[in-house]
């Protein structure tokens, strides 16, 4: 990380389909901190993460990235892993990752090959690299989606139920990856119903609108 950044939300409010999902939501997340987003189904966890990723508009409040080089760079500082894995079945595992590296890597020379191999190793996909991604099991596809985080490093990780369909060892790899990311000064917001062994700085409970 070039310099420590922090993500600050002030009085954030969002409506979807005429229903207020949350309002008056404020939090601050500094370098090396992770926030657990929790709340019942439909409380707006996914909406909040997609909103930070710049995929949804919000109706009230302010969301800012402090310490970034330029204004409005928030979506480009985020890596989002949502419910959909974003995997091309017709491409091999390695091709899927290589495209992510080339596309999100932003033209860094030499970003490709090396980071693809280390991402494959991070989630134990090395032996599957040549297989068409369409042949992977649900858990393996999830691992491939998560290894995107490693292949194109971005300071803010937004993870929506990252551990769905992962086995025990893959959850351990996920814990390790998040831990390493935080140690390097990254930020993470995780919405998860299953316990993760990550040292969270706090829990954002949606549906009640308070920071616990």
């Amino acid at each position, binding site marked *: 990380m070039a310099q420590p950044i922090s993500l600050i939300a002030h009085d954030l409010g969002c409506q979807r389909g005429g229903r207020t999902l949350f309002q008056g939501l404020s939090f601050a997340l500094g370098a090396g901190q992770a926030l657990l987003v929790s709340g019942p189904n439909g409380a707006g966890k996914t909406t909040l993460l997609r909103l930070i990723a710049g*995929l949804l508009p919000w109706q009230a409040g302010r969301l800012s990235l402090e310490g970034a080089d330029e204004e409005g760079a928030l979506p480009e500082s985020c890596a989002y892993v949502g419910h959909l894995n*974003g995997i091309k079945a017709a*491409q091999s595992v390695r091709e899927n990752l290589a495209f992510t590296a080339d*596309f999100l890597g932003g033209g860094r020379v030499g970003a490709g090959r090396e980071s693809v191999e280390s991402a494959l190793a991070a989630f134990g996909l090395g032996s599957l690299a040549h297989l068409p991604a369409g042949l992977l099991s649900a858990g393996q596809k999830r691992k491939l989606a998560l290894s995107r985080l490693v292949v194109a490093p971005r300071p803010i990780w937004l993870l929506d139920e990252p551990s769905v369909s992962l086995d025990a060892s893959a959850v351990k790899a996920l814990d390790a990856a998040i831990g390493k990311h935080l140690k390097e000064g990254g930020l993470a917001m995780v919405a998860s119903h299953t316990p993760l062994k990550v040292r969270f700085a706090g829990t954002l409970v949606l549906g009640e609108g308070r920071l616990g």
Partner: protein
Amino acid sequence: MRPALALLLRDIKLAWREGGAIGTTLGFYLVVVAITPLGLGPDLNLLSRIAAGVLWVALLLASLLSADRIFHNDYEDGTLDMLAMGPLPLPLVAALKSLAHWITTGVPLALLAPILGLLLNLPINAVPWLVLAMLAGTPSVSFVAAIGASLTLGLRRSGVLLALLVLPLYVPVLIFGVATVSAATTGPASPWPPFLMLCALSLASLVLAPIAAAAALRTAMR
């Protein structure tokens, strides 16, 4: 530069690999043109007169077959989220995907047209102009199709609605495309003015269509 190239090459590769995209389009073109003379009877003069029009109309229909693929697959599997968060602005993403559609649909169709022209007794001196006009006009076809594809994202049976939305927008391309070929065969006017109009249409859609498509994509992702 590198992200743009990566996206373009990936889309072209996927169109080859996912099967059906290029094959179906070319096959549809072949069949539509091949059955037209069967319906009209073996009047060679008539066929030769309408050849350019039939080739153009069939080309428009054939390229619509694969138009919903421009964004649909990426929308469905979640890749669109990643593309929206990448270093490229969304209109540029839309432009690159339209360009990939042109390379995998417009160019093969334009190159197949002279062969199908034989079935319609297309005058041989019209062939260079036909190919030229199609290569100049099909970028507009792909880029305008991208608007329809992004507007119909997430709808079931989107293909039919897409055709309804987009076909009326193809009228200028059709008129100037056919005018170029008939001017080249029957004269007396020069084929250059309608040809240059085709180029202008393509250049205008190259600039304007991605902006409209990106706006529709933003709405579709909500």
